[in-house]
């Protein structure tokens, strides 16, 4: 420092001391530090600023003292011009109020570290704006500065401005309250995420309306927020805003109790509940607090999905009656209680699906699946109900939830009854109906029906029905009536079998039948023909007495009842149901659907079945069947289809049999089926004539609807009819996916089948695996990776070495050992006696079994493995540098290279590192191992890279190859697994292991049904893993995909798998698992 400068500073010091004694002592040490940071002229400018301030007024020396005190710290944070700006702002504040300036300076080091230099003035003005010359305003402004470092840690400058605005507005009402709110806000802001404005706005609007509540608001928010999931807090506050805007409630109280409620809820539920709150807010804001407060109580009874059902019902009530709705959401209304009761005792399909699916599988003895009814409706193949139970021949569809009964047990029993009935269609052959097969209970009419009436034999003329069921229903003019009759008779037959074959379920079955009776229409309210149909329904539900029929048709009623009951026996077959249907239909066709006067009804005695049947004459029935119907009488009503029996649901025999046959057709090899293939035309013909589909309901004309249904059915059966390209296939379908089997065209290519789960069969020779050897990169990668893991690598290796002598086995005939073998000793003595030379090998011992493990590691190198994972926490420092000079150079290069290219790690990098550690460890114990990576695009290009072939010895070349492992294309796992399996198959080890390391679900172009169905890939992969298991190869999947659980459960049903939450644990975990799996 120049002499001149020193002198000037000395001078300043003197003047300062003059302004206030002791000030010099503050100045001197500060000046020393500041001088080391600034140029001489700047130091002087700074000193003068302080001096100026000190001399401003009587008390301004305090501000100056603080200014000097913090200057060293602040000077370091900003360029000199801003530093002076800062001083000027302080100086100006000091002119207003030295106290203000003191707090400004005191807060500066903390605030400046968070504030950009250009915002200094804004900040100073915010505090200054709060100062109104009064003592109280001074206190508020001072507090503001004091709080600033903390506030600025979470608020941006614009937010800070808004917040100061709020404080200002509040201070117009009460300075004390503003100050208190300021204090509380220090705790609130850190709890808010990105969105602080929601809160500030809330405060501002409350200040405008009911300012006295603002402090309450701050307090309640501070209490409520910690209980709410961080990402949901802003939503919560926005709801509060909504409430505030509606002007209805005492906001602080509402927030308090809502927060209280939220704190009792599972964090996972915050999101859906606030979602419901938002819906409600749009309708009736006043109901929102009650709703949220009621949630903990409601959730004690019901699941979150059921809660949303309860909510929906409440919204419905609210629409009708606001007060009723409000009471509902407070769970104060009877309706609300009732709704919760019903929901809480109801059973959700998703919870029982696995158990019931196995149950159905056991009963049916065929591959039956279970699904919710709406899934079938979504397929658009003719079934429309979202709730009715049904089956289409391979899957049993059930309602998503059952809550009809007051207890869970009863509702579960209902599910069981419903499933048992549906599966009975499969178990007892509803869809196995054959037109030409004789019945067991009747003289068959079918062969005797010589010709069906005109206009219905069109199909016959064309020479074929697609299914036997279609042929059967073609016999009837009024197909809908025939369908109703057949449904009732067949369901009655199945129920009779179930109740007799499964005595254990009888009680609940009968109870459900009783229940079903209650929701049947009153027979006496129906026209004659419908009345007789309803009579049959009730009979099939075991109603024995109180059955009515029009007196006029007393005999017909008796006959119909007798026929229906005849089939309701455990030995009846589906053909019996068909024969009964023919007869009943013939009888009903003679009964006009006319009204009956209340007095003309009569109770029917259904016990005399024999007498009733005796009145039937086959020939006459045949005549009635083939007769053209006469013109309806004037008072005849149109026939209204019979209402489905609730637990039996929808029965569609024609569609069901069609689907069954289509599936069979899919499994047949082309050329070896005896019958004719079902074509799209035949399918459409069936659909048009069938009474089971409603072609009018869909969009577009009948013609279009038929085409769409037929298309969907074919797809559903896995029969994607070969189409010409111009027929316009979806963009997702690739031509090659429709092609046929492939042939390996080059050496080192292998062809594998692929599993099509829809078709339940393999697509033969579907994928080509191209095996290549990984290109070679830098050998240094291996060493440097090992090095970066430091002592850990060696520790892992030692753990592996300890693995070796894990198993023991008795070995005999040793010269030395644990114990003498008595058999051998006797033998030796015998030898001595007989004069032969005795053996000296008389001992046995438990010996180490040679570890005999062969393993293949399969690395997923799909493009997604290039994804970055957040920067490693571990910072490698230079101590890690290899000592070997050559390695060192490489190490340096990679480090620099990495620094330039990317500073983040990718999934694949961790996969590679894991491989390096693994090789290091495996070489210690001598297991046979191979490492391969796979990727590919399309089924003809599954790339399979050898990093270390299973028979190959570890070498520098292997090290080089690892370096080159890089993300490639898609993930077609199935063929890669099959190829790896073939490698292991060729090995002769006791334990064989296939280790799959991946980053996500299998995915590839066309690796799906029509390119959209993820399940396809998952199932094929699963099948490939199953195949490995069949070959005694244990498979294990390790994935870093957090969403892995959902598909891995299917994919690795019988195998082990693990989802890594933290990808950084991959190398460690892999080694751990490997050890555990091979012991």
């Amino acid at each position, binding site marked *: 420092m120049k002499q001149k400068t020193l002198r000037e500073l000395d001078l300043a010091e003197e003047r300062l001391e003059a302004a206030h004694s002791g000030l010099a002592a503050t100045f001197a040490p500060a000046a020393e530090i500041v001088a080391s940071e600034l140029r001489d002229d700047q130091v002087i400018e700074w000193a003068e600023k302080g001096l100026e301030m000190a001399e401003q007024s009587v008390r301004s020396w305090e501000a100056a003292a603080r200014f000097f005190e913090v200057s060293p710290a602040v000077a370091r944070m900003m360029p000199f011009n801003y530093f002076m700006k800062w001083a000027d702002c302080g100086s100006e504040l000091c002119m207003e109020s030295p106290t203000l300036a003191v707090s400004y300076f005191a807060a500066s080091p903390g605030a400046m570290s968070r504030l950009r230099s250009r915002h200094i003035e804004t900040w100073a003005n915010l505090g200054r704006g709060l100062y109104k010359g009064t003592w109280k305003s001074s206190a508020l402004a001072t507090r503001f500065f004091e709080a600033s470092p903390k506030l600025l840690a979470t608020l941006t400058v614009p937010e800070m401005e808004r917040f100061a605005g709020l404080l200002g507005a509040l201070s117009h009402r009460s300075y004390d309250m503003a100050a208190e709110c300021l204090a509380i806000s220090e705790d609130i802001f850190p709890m808010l995420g990105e969105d602080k404005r929601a809160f500030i706005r809330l405060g501002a609007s409350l200040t405008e309306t009911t300012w006295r509540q603002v402090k309450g608001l701050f307090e309640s928010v501070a209490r409520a927020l910690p209980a709410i999931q961080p990402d949901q807090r802003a939503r919560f506050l926005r709801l509060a805003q909504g409430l505030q805007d509606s002007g209805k409630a005492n906001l602080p109280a509402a927030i308090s109790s809502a927060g209280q409620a939220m704190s009792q809820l599972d964090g996972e539920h915050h999101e859906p509940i606030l979602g419901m709150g938002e819906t409600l807010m749009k309708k009736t804001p006043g109901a929102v607090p009650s709703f949220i407060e009621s949630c903990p109580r409601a959730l004690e009874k019901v699941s979150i999905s059921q809660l949303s059902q309860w909510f929906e019902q409440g919204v419905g009530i609210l629409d009708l009656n606001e007060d009723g709705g409000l009471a509902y959401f407070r769970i104060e209304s009877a309706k609300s209680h009732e709704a919760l009761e019903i929901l809480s005792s109801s059973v959700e399909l998703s919870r029982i699906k696995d158990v019931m699916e196995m149950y159905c599988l*056991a*009963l049916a003895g065929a591959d039956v699946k279970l699904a919710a009814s709406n899934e079938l409706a979504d397929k658009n193949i003719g079934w429309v109900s979202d709730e009715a139970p049904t089956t289409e021949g391979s899957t049993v569809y059930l309602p998503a939830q059952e809550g009809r009964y007051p207890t869970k047990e009863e509702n579960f029993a209902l599910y*069981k009854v419903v499933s048992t009935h549906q599966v009975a269609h499969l178990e007892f052959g509803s869809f196995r109906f054959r037109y030409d097969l004789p019945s067991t209970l009747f003289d068959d009419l079918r062969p005797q029906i010589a010709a069906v009436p005109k206009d219905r034999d069109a199909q016959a003329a064309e020479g074929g029905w697609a299914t036997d069921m279609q042929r059967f229903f073609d016999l009837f003019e009024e197909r809908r009536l025939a369908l109703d009759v057949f449904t009732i008779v067949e369901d009655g037959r199945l129920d009779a079998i179930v109740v007799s074959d499964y005595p254990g379920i009888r009680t609940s079955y009968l109870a459900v039948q009783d229940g079903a009776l209650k929701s049947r229409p009153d027979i006496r309210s129906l026209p004659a023909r419908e009345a007789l149909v309803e009579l049959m329904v009730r009979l099939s539900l075991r109603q024995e007495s109180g059955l009515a029929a029009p007196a006029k048709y007393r005999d017909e009623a008796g006959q119909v009842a007798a026929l229906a009951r005849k089939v309701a026996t455990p030995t009846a077959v589906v053909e019996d149901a068909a024969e009964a249907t023919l007869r009943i239909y013939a009888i009903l066709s003679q009964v006009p659907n006319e009204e009956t006067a209340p007095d003309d009804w009569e109770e029917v005695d259904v016990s005399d079945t024999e007498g009733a049947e005796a009145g039937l004459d086959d020939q006459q029935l045949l005549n009635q069947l083939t007769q053209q119907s006469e013109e309806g009488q004037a008072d005849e009503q149109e026939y209204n289809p019979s209402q489905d029996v609730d637990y039996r649901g929808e029965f569609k025999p024609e569609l069901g049999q069609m689907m069954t046959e289509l599936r069979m057709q899919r499994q047949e090899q082309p050329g070896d089926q005896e019958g004719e293939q079902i074509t799209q035309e035949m399918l459409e013909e069936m659909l048009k004539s069938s009474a089971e589909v409603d072609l009018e309901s869909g969009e577009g004309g009948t013609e279009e609807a038929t085409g769409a249904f037929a298309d969907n059915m074919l797809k559903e059966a896995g029969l994607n009819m070969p189409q010409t390209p111009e027929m316009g296939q979806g963009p997702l379908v690739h031509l090659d996916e429709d092609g046929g089997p492939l042939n390996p065209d080059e050496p080192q290519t292998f062809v594998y089948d692929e599993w099509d789960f829809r078709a339940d069969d393999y697509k033969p020779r579907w994928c080509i695996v191209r095996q290549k050897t990984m290109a070679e990169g830098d050998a240094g990668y291996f060493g440097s990776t090992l090095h970066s893991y430091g002592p850990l690598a060696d520790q892992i290796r030692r753990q592996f070495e300890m693995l070796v002598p894990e198993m023991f086995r008795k070995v005999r005939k040793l010269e030395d050992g644990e114990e003498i073998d008595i058999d051998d000793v006797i033998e030796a003595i015998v030898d001595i006696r007989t004069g032969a030379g005795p053996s000296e090998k008389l001992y046995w011992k438990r010996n180490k079994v040679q570890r005999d493990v062969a393993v293949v590691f399969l690395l997923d190198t799909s493009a997604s493995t290039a994804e970055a994972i957040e920067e490693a926490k571990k910072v490698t420092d230079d101590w890690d540098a290899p000592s070997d000079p050559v390695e060192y150079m490489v190490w340096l290069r990679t480090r620099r290279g990495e620094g330039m290219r990317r500073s983040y790690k990718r999934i694949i990098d961790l996969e590679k590192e894991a491989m390096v550690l693994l090789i290091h460890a495996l070489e210690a114990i001598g297991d046979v191992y191979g490492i391969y990576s796979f990727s590919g695009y399309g089924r003809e290009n599954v790339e399979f890279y050898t990093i270390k072939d299973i028979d190959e010895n570890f070498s520098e070349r292997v090290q080089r190859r690892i370096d080159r492992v890089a993300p490639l294309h898609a993930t077609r796992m199935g063929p890669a697994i099959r190829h790896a399996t073939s490698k292991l198959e060729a090995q002769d080890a006791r334990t064989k292991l296939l280790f799959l390391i991946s980053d996500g679900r299998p995915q590839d172009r066309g690796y799906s049904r029509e390119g959209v169905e993820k399940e396809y890939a998952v199932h094929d992969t699963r099948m490939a893993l199953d195949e490995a298991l069949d070959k005694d190869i244990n498979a294990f999947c390790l994935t870093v995909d957090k969403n892995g659980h959902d598909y891995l459960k299917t994919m690795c049903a019988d195998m082990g798998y693990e989802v890594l939450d933290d990808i950084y644990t991959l190398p460690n975990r892999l080694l751990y698992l490997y050890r555990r799996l091979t012991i």
Partner: protein
Amino acid sequence: MTTRTQTLYRSYIIEEYHLADEPYYVPVGDEIELFEAAYRQRIPILFKGPTGCGKTRFVEYMSYRLGQPLTRVSQRSGEDADDSDVQNGHRNIPLVTIACHEDLTASDLVGRYLLQGDSTIWIDGPLTRAVKAGGICYLDEIVEARKDTTVLIHPLTDHRRILPVEKRGELLEAAEGFLLVMSYNPGYQSALKDLKHSTRQRFVAIEFHPPPPEIESQIVEHEAGVDRKTAEQLAKLGEKVRNLREHGLAEGASTRLLIYAGKLMAQGIQPRRACQVAVNWAVTDDSSIHSSIAEVISSIFE
């Protein structure tokens, strides 16, 4: 003080063990004809099938049946049949059963020298005894035996029908009635433990499957002493549980388990409970499959 001792067990000399009473056996297919034909031609027989489906019972039955006059086999001339063996025209065919295990050695099968006082005596192993006595030798779970042991039976199972007894330096020619029968459950064998082809191809294989419900219910009724209806329900349960094979169950419920369940019921245990303990827990440890089977049980039994 007098002590009375009472023999609480019966012991048999191996080759004297034969079945006095006809074992209960219900044929499921043509296995009886096949066995008889093979026996007449002295072709060794391999039983393949899951556990508890009647393999052991069948070989017992056949050894009894073949001793009956109708199917009586001609004896080798020169060997005089011991009169005690022939009663009422019934010549007993001894049944020697050997359970195979990993440590089974050749000496265990063929025999070994033992010391007795100052001298040594030779004791025949069970296989040698069966060979000499002309009995049926039943090797249960043959795949469990070590491969070197398995090879021992090769000369016995081709046209030579000899057993080399190395230690004594002799070759034993099998007596007329001798036949080797082995059993093998392909279900849970690992590929490593598979039979050698040279062994396998010395046998004709008779396959055993769980009997169809009509027959199985008959067996259960007889063996467990339950009524017809219960037996039918048990057979139904067996059928339904077997439907779950390949859907998570390694093996279905065997006839033996169904009989156990029936026996418990005959002792007064509640049917559902009996099936739980005898069938459900025996076939699976997987809780989901377990619940499903429990539902099947509760549908079938009241």
